[in-house]
């Protein structure tokens, strides 16, 4: 394998804290291509934030190396890495005005004053906050503060932007809106984005590729569609979206996504060649644009089916149904119990 020259590459990166039984990050190698939107997704404690922190330079590595465009950076101090970082708690300097916050990185790089002024104006306009240059961070809403933090982190055109759960402190509506703005910024700037989140919806919506972290390792790396349609492990299948996880053969689990199954009241309407299993409806949830039918299979496994809006159905909690799907929509993963990880 040849060493990738552009983008961010990590090679066998490990972080072990003294006194803890397993490493926080365990032998992680991956390559983030130039201009890519990469997301580290995982539950808390999975190592995704530690990984970002090591790339940013806030946490020293126990082993391994990190390169940016082929240049080894893992022993450089954060201020020499030329990366932008956006924090969950904004981390704006409270004693500096918005303009001086945004100018901070440019001032450190000793750019001429005229250029700083122009650039501050440009990035504030990009995040739609031209009118608040002279305000102080505490005078802004949470969403505005995070926009200023985004502007500050891209103002000096760093090599890549690292975002550490930037939307986690915001309420749902702002989160959706900023999600779209971040996607827009990524397209506009063409910059490499590394985004850390525990929110699978966020990861699926924004990313070119997602690295799913679990217990310090990358469980699976792929495009959102690959991870959703073809999960490689039971953990990925269960962490990303809902699924029908059926143990049809010993040692493996068959995953079928809720959109891929159809419900029938008898076996007559099931097309030939389709897989079928009987189940009991446990709950029916109407969500406007679709309905979710929660199921329990004969072996006790739980599952779910999604019916589009306008589908009339007679399913009620307690009714018996036949669940059918096409074999090509199955993903077969190793059973976690027979496969220690």
């Amino acid at each position, binding site marked *: 394998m040849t060493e990738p020259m552009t983008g961010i590459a990590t090679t066998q990166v490990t972080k072990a804290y003294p006194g803890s039984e397993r490493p926080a990050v365990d032998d992680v190698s991956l390559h983030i291509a130039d201009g890519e939107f990469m997301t580290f997704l995982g539950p808390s404690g999975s190592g995704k934030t530690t990984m970002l922190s090591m790339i940013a330079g806030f946490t020293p590595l126990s082993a391994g190396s990190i390169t940016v465009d082929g240049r080894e950076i893992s022993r450089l101090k954060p*201020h020499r890495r030329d990366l*932008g970082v956006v924090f969950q708690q904004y981390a704006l300097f409270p004693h500096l005005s918005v303009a001086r916050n945004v100018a901070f990185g440019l001032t450190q790089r000793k750019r001429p004053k005229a250029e700083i002024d122009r650039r501050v104006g440009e990035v504030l306009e990009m995040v739609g906050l031209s009118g608040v240059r002279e305000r102080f961070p505490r005078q802004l809403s949470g969403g505005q503060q995070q926009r200023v933090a985004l502007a*500050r982190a891209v103002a000096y055109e760093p090599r890549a932007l690292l975002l550490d759960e930037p939307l986690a402190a915001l309420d749902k509506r702002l989160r959706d809106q900023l999600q779209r703005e971040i996607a827009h910024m990524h397209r506009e700037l063409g910059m490499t984005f590394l985004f850390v989140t525990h929110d699978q919806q966020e990861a699926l919506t924004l990313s070119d590729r997602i690295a799913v972290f679990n217990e310090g390792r990358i469980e699976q790396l792929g495009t959102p569609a690959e991870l959703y349609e073809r999960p490689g492990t039971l953990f990925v299948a269960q962490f990303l979206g809902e699924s029908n996880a059926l143990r049809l053969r010993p040692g493996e689990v068959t995953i079928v996504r809720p959109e891929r199954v159809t419900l029938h009241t008898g076996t007559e309407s099931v097309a030939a060649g389709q897989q079928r299993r009987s189940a009991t409806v446990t709950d029916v949830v109407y969500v406007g644009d679709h309905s979710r039918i929660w199921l329990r299979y004969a072996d006790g496994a739980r599952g779910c089916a999604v019916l589009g809006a306008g589908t009339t159905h007679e399913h009620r909690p307690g009714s018996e149904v036949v669940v059918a799907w096409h074999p090509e929509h199955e993903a077969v993963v190793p059973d976690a119990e027979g496969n220690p990880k």
Partner: protein
Amino acid sequence: MTAIRPAGKPRARAHWLLLPAAAVLLVVFFYPLATILWRSIAEPEFGPGNYLAVLGDAVALRVVLRTLGTALIITAVTLLIAYPYAYAMTLVGRRARGLLTLLVLMPFWTSLMARNFAWYVLEQRGGVIERAFAAIGIHGVTLLGSVAGVTVAMVQVMLPFMVLPLQNAMLGIDRGLLHAAGSLGAPRPTAFLRIYLPLSMPGVLSGVSVVFIMSLGFYITPALLGTPQQALVAQVIGTRVNDLLDFPGAGALGAVLLVITLVVLALLGRVAGPVGASMTGGGDRG
């Protein structure tokens, strides 16, 4: 400053809660203060005579200047010791922080007299300090009876008044800001100077105000550990009251000290104003 306060009735009712404190202050503080100021202009005859005497008295002026200088040195030394100490307190774990707080509060729990006599014993000729210096080859270090001896003892007393406001301000500083500064290209010294130091300024200013003003009025420590030749204002006032029975003259000198104190407070307030105003909650609460 912009915080929403309950308006109207509850606020009006709260005034009554201040009544006991106001009554005590009126009787034991403002009444004596007014008496002293009145006597300083009314005796022995009405007029600014006592003040002209103080301002025309070279010795009195020298004492005032020496007091200001000593207070300045004490404040500076206390700040230099307290700042790293308070900073360390914000970095360590909860248990170690408790221990460090305990150490710094210890002087509060010992009586002033006991502490001063302890320093007397340490600083005297042939005392522990002199012998310790002699052991490393520096002879003749007797702190007792010198400005240095007074300064050392007063710095110890003043330390908690500097450490506590500093630590309070520093605990309110998000250490993530230093990471942010680093990621933006600032080396650690720059991040400290541009971000941490300005954000800790409210603590510095309140510590400096308290220590400087308290140092101006110190009486027992300089009386016990210093010499009459290097007396500070409080000692001179004491001499005028106790030995010379010159109440009006003492009052005038006291008034001069009060004016100096108020001027210093006003100047520090002017500096603190813009710093405090741009802070998030921390500055307002502190």
